[in-house]
């Protein structure tokens, strides 16, 4: 019942929230005795000041696109999937299995199979919480948290037993050379542009495609229509003959698959082997990305790049000053806090402002019945 224009909702408010989060982060930097402006300058320069910076920024962004879309899709059905972390871990496992055990003749075939493997394993890991939510009403937030822990236990177990490569570290063998994805530097070199070495690879394009497909799914297909309707009102969905079980299951499977796709970037694109922790909290960053992006793929893409820059900038910051990398975790927490939990702190006054402004200027009332 707010009279706030749409642009305020999708642009103004997230921006104000972001500014607040950054201001508070700046205060934290001051608190630990550093110059926040200088820190900011280092981060910006580190993240977007060179092709090296861009490479890493977009590499991280690719991870966040997948996990952000995963959270966003589930949000449309009013499902809060905080299991992105575990789903991405399992997705990574799927990608690793595909790369390790099938002799691929060419990276493109391997990529296609890895996409299938990552999505399948990610979706499978979301399936049980989804089923329990749909059929037994077990709260998906709690079950997905639990599944994150179970996933990491499972991965540890596999990496110290059947999948372990010879050597001491809990990791798999390196993937065959044929599964190596083209890196940005390779692609740019082919067209004569000099691009620094970075792990940015073709998965980024897969991420962009995923954004477009998710947009199509949510706003153009029947399934997306049903997902949104279900998310808005469960009784209405029942009235319309939209099956609750189907929507919860399908949405979570899509969400888990998207999270699982992260594996193609992190595992196949960069590490070329499965480690114990490939996800590095990206599942959780997805929450912040989705909140900031207001659940829209374009928003998710922009927010993912912002967080990618934050991660890369944070790494540079740690390298150049004594501000530890945890600074990014703090900024991320503050973004989640301000855009997610404290949203009304900004929204209430802003919508009141618009209301007052709207009252002063007499708007033509549409005729009642």
């Amino acid at each position, binding site marked *: *019942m*707010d*009279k706030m224009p749409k642009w305020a909702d999708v642009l103004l408010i997230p921006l104000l929230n972001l500014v607040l989060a950054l201001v508070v982060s700046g205060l934290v930097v001051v608190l630990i005795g550093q110059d926040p402006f200088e820190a900011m300058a280092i981060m910006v320069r580190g993240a977007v000041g060179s092709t090296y910076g861009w490479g890493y920024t977009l590499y991280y962004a690719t991870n966040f696109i997948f996990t952000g879309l995963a959270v966003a899709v589930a949000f449309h059905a009013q499902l809060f999937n905080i299991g992105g972390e575990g789903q991405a871990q399992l997705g990574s496992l799927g990608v690793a299995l595909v790369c390790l055990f099938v002799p691929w003749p060419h990276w493109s075939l391997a990529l296609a199979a890895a996409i299938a493997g990552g999505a399948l394993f990610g979706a499978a890991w979301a399936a049980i919480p989804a089923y329990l939510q749909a059929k037994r009403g077990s709260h998906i937030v709690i079950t997905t948290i639990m599944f994150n822990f179970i996933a990491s236990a499972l991965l540890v177990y596999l990496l110290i037993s059947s999948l372990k490569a010879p050597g001491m570290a809990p990791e798999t063998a390196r993937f065959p050379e044929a599964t190596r994805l083209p890196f940005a530097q390779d692609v740019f070199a082919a067209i004569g542009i000099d691009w620094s070495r970075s792990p940015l690879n073709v998965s980024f394009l897969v991420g962009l495609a995923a954004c477009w497909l998710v947009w*199509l799914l949510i706003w*153009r*297909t*029947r399934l997306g*229509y*049903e997902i*949104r*309707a279900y998310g*808005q*009102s469960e*009784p*209405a969905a*029942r*009235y*319309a*003959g*939209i*099956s609750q079980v189907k929507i919860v299951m399908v949405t979570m499977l899509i969400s888990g698959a998207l999270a699982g796709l992260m594996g193609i970037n992190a595992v196949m694109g960069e590490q070329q082997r499965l480690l114990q922790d490939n996800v590095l909290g990206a599942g959780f960053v997805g929450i912040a990305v989705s909140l900031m992006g207001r659940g829209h793929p374009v928003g998710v893409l922009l927010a993912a790049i912002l967080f990618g820059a934050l991660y890369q900038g944070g790494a540079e910051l740690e390298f150049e000053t004594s501000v530890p990398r945890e600074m990014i975790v703090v900024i991320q927490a503050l973004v989640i806090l301000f855009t997610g939990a404290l949203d009304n702190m900004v929204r209430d006054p802003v*919508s009141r402002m618009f*209301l007052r402004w*709207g009252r002063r200027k007499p708007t033509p009332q*549409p*005729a*009642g*019945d």
Partner: protein
Amino acid sequence: MAFQDTDTGRPGAAPDPSPGNRGDGATPAIELRGISKSFGPVQANKDIAIRVMPGTIHGIIGENGAGKSTLMSILYGFYKADAGEIRIHGKQTAIPDSQAAISAGIGMVFQHFKLVENFTVLENVVLGAEDGALLRPSLAKARKLLKQLSDEYELHVEPDAKIEDLGVGMQQRVEILKALYRQADILILDEPTGVLTPAEADHLFRILDGLKREGKTIILITHKLREIMETTDTVSVMRRGEMTATVRTADTSPEELAELMVGRKVLLRVDKTAAQPGAPVLQVEDLRVVDSQGVERLRGVSLDVRRGEILGIAGVAGNGQSELLEVLGGMREGQGRVLVNGEPIDLTGTRSDARTRRRRGIGHVPEDRQREGLIMNFYAWENVAFGYHDDPAYNRGPLMDQAAIRADTEAKIAKFDVRPANAWQEARNFSGGNQQKIVIARELERNPDLLLVGQPTRGVDIGAIEFIHEQIVALRDQGKAILLVSVELDEIMSLSDRIAVMFDGRLMGERLPSETDERELGLMMAGISDTGGDHDIAEVERNLAHPSGDPHKES
């Protein structure tokens, strides 16, 4: 600060400083001046003034959404007014919260009860009015006092029963006892009879009379003109957030009140020809529904609806009518046998959903358009496809054909005179009546063989009511079957060709509108189907404690 002058805030303690008192010299128990309140863009109360004399019953009537509950909630400190002042027994009193209202001697029974479901009656009564930090002494004292109160006012309840095990009528008693326990001498009741049978309502009014005789002041909100005429001393009428009149009940008539309420002359009867019933479209045999808590909501319902007739189901809210519509509409599962056009339909399993029902020619106007019938954040055009979104005409391959849906929407908006005629407006920004028109347009234009209609005119203004009634009758006249559920007896009486009454998940019997009256239907609604004999209060009392009622259903 709670409020000023607690010690002088009792009956007759202070002289009324305000001029313009009525001749009898007494100070009003309650006086509100210039109360305004808006919820975001909705102005629920506009500059309202009202005064109520001590020891009287004051009625407030008005359409749905007129702002009655809001006003009373302000008086009770539940909402904070944007402007205005409150005087209790002549003293200006700030009521920032319910604590202040309680201290000022005000008690309120909300339209949607405010009880903790898994607490006992006793715990609910003492909640917030405990005597000390420890619970046990408070509970013991309350038990004694409760017994005293229930003897005094014939308000018997079982102190150790859990609220969730009690019927609606009983729960209402708990609410009244709560107020009395807090020694309220001003009692506000917001639509107390909406969930009661006529007999239960009679009992309530006897209690209110007793309270009044003791000198307590009562404010009664109701939609029912008859109750106003029979019980109140004075009555105020609200319309669209404003107080349009306050009159002595003795000086007015139902017709005048109705006109004040809606702002023009009202015609409550529907013009329609006699029904021409044909072959049965819907045949229901021994239909049963058990809800998620394991309570049997329908206990073997059998009925027929034929082509070209309207079967009205009357009953107090919460007696299984909603479940009947839901199970027929495919929103919940049931057991029994249901035939549509002679063919059985699945009552369980994947083919018992609403989508399958629509394919079988069943249209459904749900009871709660905002919760069920519409997606409030979807545009009008998205809502027009709602439920029929897999219609091939609305789709092109895997994608939805938005242009086709919008074109269809424009046509329906024009035909049903939805205002504003804007397919790109979100459903929540249409008024209640226009929202209902969107639902009706969507369902009726599909030309269903059987139309399920629940509360078609709830919260809809009088102009739209007439339009909606006409559309329903027109559908009947095309030879369709219509099953109508409404808690408004007037609506049932005027629209139905046959009337069945539901009580506690069973049909109590069927009547023709021409051969029955509200009194008889009222008794049936209380579960007393034998119209010949006498009915003692004990029988009504037993039904009152039935846990089938569900006052929260519509909230």
